[in-house]
């Protein structure tokens, strides 16, 4: 691969992720609107919000770590996108692999946690404490899934994983070979996106949106951008692991949107759990299903 193509991919991949992410946010809000029997926002609404927030006149900061936190939150996801192969673009996916991706995806959370910490708001701190606890909860089934997939395909290189799946057609998809792990993965996805019933760290009625509590202007805008990336990353990762990645952009996007629509729909039909209820649920059913699936895979 020439260096020019690589550089182009490194620029394009985050950009595509952002644009697709914007539409995912739109879909999230539209699904909510449909379930709540109303119209919902206009198509460009997510973009309006972000442009407006970046265009605020006063930007209230609580210190330099607050600033750096947002930079890390957005930048970490920008970096993560280049580790995530999409049709026609592999980026540096073969330089890092699945484990690295999982860990790079924690960087934005860490940045956010530090930034929120400096805001010196108890609501934010509780929110971060809950977010990290939630991470502990959903990562257990998630790593079982990651392990199972890596074992089944014999590699942690996402490019190879996708190639192996595509070679076998639908029958070769991870979801066909490892249905139980795919189900466990859906649970983890719900937790990863922090949607109800696992929406414990935003919880407006309890901690006034937790980490977002002191975020204004471009800080909040950064979080909105991060949300786009987060939805995209979670969707694409799931598709890459279980649904054969993307043969072409059309099918790829169809699959990604379909996957992300599941947690979004569930989100509007449930209240949120308490923290320990969430952990208990996450460590019970998905882990059980995941371990069972793992046992099948490793046999």
């Amino acid at each position, binding site marked *: 691969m020439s260096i020019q193509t690589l550089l182009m991919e490194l620029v394009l991949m985050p950009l595509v992720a952002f644009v697709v992410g914007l539409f995912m946010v739109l879909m999230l809000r539209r699904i909510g609107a449909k379930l709540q029997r109303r119209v919902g926002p206009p198509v460009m609404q997510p973009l309006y919000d972000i442009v407006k927030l*970046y*265009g605020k006149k*006063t*930007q*209230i*900061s*609580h210190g330099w*770590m607050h*600033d750096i936190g947002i*930079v*890390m*939150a*957005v*930048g*970490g*996801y920008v*970096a*993560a996108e*280049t580790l995530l192969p999409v049709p026609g673009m592999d980026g540096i996916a*073969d*330089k*890092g*692999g*699945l*484990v*690295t991706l999982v860990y*790079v995806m924690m*960087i934005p959370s*860490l940045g956010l946690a*530090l930034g929120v*910490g*400096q*805001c*010196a*708001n108890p609501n934010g701190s*509780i929110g971060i*404490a809950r977010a*990290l*606890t939630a*991470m*502990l909860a959903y*990562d257990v089934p998630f*790593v079982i899934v990651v*392990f*199972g997939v*890596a074992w089944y395909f*014999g*590699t*942690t*290189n996402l490019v*190879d994983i996708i190639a192996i799946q595509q070679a076998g057609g639908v029958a070769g998809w991870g979801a066909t070979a490892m249905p139980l792990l795919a189900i466990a993965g859906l649970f983890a996805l719900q937790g990863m996106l922090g949607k109800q019933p696992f929406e414990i760290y935003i919880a407006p009625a309890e901690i*006034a949106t937790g980490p977002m509590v002191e975020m204004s202007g471009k800080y909040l805008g*950064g979080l909105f*951008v991060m949300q786009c990336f987060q939805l995209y990353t979670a969707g694409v990762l799931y598709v890459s692991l279980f649904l054969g990645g993307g043969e072409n952009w059309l099918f790829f996007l169809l699959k990604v949107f379909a996957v992300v629509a599941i947690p979004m729909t569930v989100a509007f039909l449930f209240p949120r759990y*308490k*923290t*320990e209820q969430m*952990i*208990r649920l996450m460590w019970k059913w998905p882990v059980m299903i995941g371990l069972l699936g793992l046992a099948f895979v*490793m046999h």
Partner: protein
Amino acid sequence: MTPLDELLLFSGLTLVFLLLLGRFSYAGKVATVFYGGQLLFLAKMADRIVDGSIVTFSLQVELFGQQMSWRFDALSWFFAVITLGAGLLSSWYASGEWGERFRRRGGNLWLLNVALAANVFSMLILLGSGDLLALFIGWELVSWASFLLMTVAGGRAIQAAMRYITYAMSGAMAILAGIVLLWSHAGGLQYGQIIEVIPQLSQAQVWLLVALFGSGFAVKMGLLPFHLWQAAAYAETPGPGAAFFGAISARMGLYAIILVLVQLIGLARLSELMIPFTFLDMRDLWAWIAVLTIILPTYIALRQSDARYLLAWHGIGQGGYMLLGLVMGDALGSAGGLLHVFNYATNQAVLFFAVFAVMFRTGTADLNKLGGLITRMPISFFAMLVGIIGLAGLPPMNGFVSKWFVYRSLMIEGEPLLFLGAIIGTLGTILSVYKLIHNTFLGQLRVEHVEVREAPWSMVAPMIILMLLIFATGVAPGLVLDWVALVQSAVGLPVVENTLGGVELASGSLDMLWVVGVLFAGFGIGALLFYSGGRTRQVHQLDNYAGGHFLTAEIRYHYSDNFYAGLMHLIRPWYRGSFVWLESTLGSLLGIAASLIQRLYGALHPSIYLLVTVVVTLTWVLL
């Protein structure tokens, strides 16, 4: 003179210098230079080590007709580098204002410096041991030197040190028994002889051997279930001592485990030892001990409210990763384990330095009495940030690389449960280190800390060096992996094929140069996006959302205690159920032993105590 002669001589000289002239205020600075000198001698040795040859010590001692010899191979050299590095930076840290304050407050700086030098010296002797007898003597010296350093602070530290020495003595007994067992079969204690005799031993004998040596070394390493002494003993040690302990001291146990279990007995032989009534073999047992050592102490650390204790408990937990990697026995895993020794030492040292810098300025390490210091001690904050990213094992710091190696090894070997355990430990680490940095540096700045300033240069400089080291070895892990590869070949493990940025594997490789490069490119884009927005303006911390209310400085609104309350609601019963039961059972057993020993020595002054014990040890060894 071989380089090893020079090194040991110079190290002994440092000790003698401090013993004689340690009372002068410049002694600490000179000692720091001396440690630097020792490091130079070590560097001088490097080309021979790279060749794979062994550097010997000229002096040989004959005891009971046993030839005692000392030599450095790649394994010793690798550990010695870390030891001296930790010694150098700790001494540097102590040599300036910190030491001055310590002395003014009535601390015995002379004893601290001497104990540090004694530790370094004895560890070098241990690392250089060329046969089991020398190993045992070195082991005892290290134990007593550690004890000396632990007692410097007095008070609660003495209790912790007593507990330690109880454990250490019982561990030494086990080792001695193992040595006797081997000696009775091999007729000698040279490594060569032992390697020959091991295959002839029966399964039961090897079983006993592994149990004896293993438990003896595990005490020092703080492996489960012998971990209970360590946290208090390390945390109560004053500043640089704690950093030194945290960085390397416990790793002597790992060194011995590598030497005896991996090099002499061999991992293959371990796999043959089945555990009765189970489908586990000895190696699995070690792996599970490692995983439990990762998980349990990490989650105990989560509950600590004293920053030093929190770090000390993590020290125990991180040892599990090293052992886990090693027991996997493949190139990746053992490389990860060995690399983690280095990485962890840097992380732990910088974290302890940062915590003691905070203590230096505020007088407390109680996580509930701090907060908001980021604006007052930004460099210490940054040091702690780098440290926690490394300790938690996130890119781009070096801790990520070693943990990645261990994970990949577990994935390739097909150990899902061990993998899960390791990940749960990592997640617990992330949780508790965030608590550490949040409660110390983030959140509400307390009224009484408004005047606090950054720590002085003598304390900041070692932190900056360590930060750079952590980052550099994170970006280019190949630098350390080269050494690790040497160690692997010296020990007889498969050698990892590393590149500068990590490792190339058919089943998914790692190139940190790329990963970090892209990460920082991402940060760049993030920053670009961020600074494309309007100008920021910093507001006061009281200009804050409080449900519409007005905040005043007198109100405490910093969330610090019981930080992961939601999680604790679920897992608190487990602490009560398992950990406390474990601790109380072991505690009552060990309490009996401890009380016996304490009754003997408890009344004595530490220095007299030391003298007596040295005499006892010498007579014991000689007779």
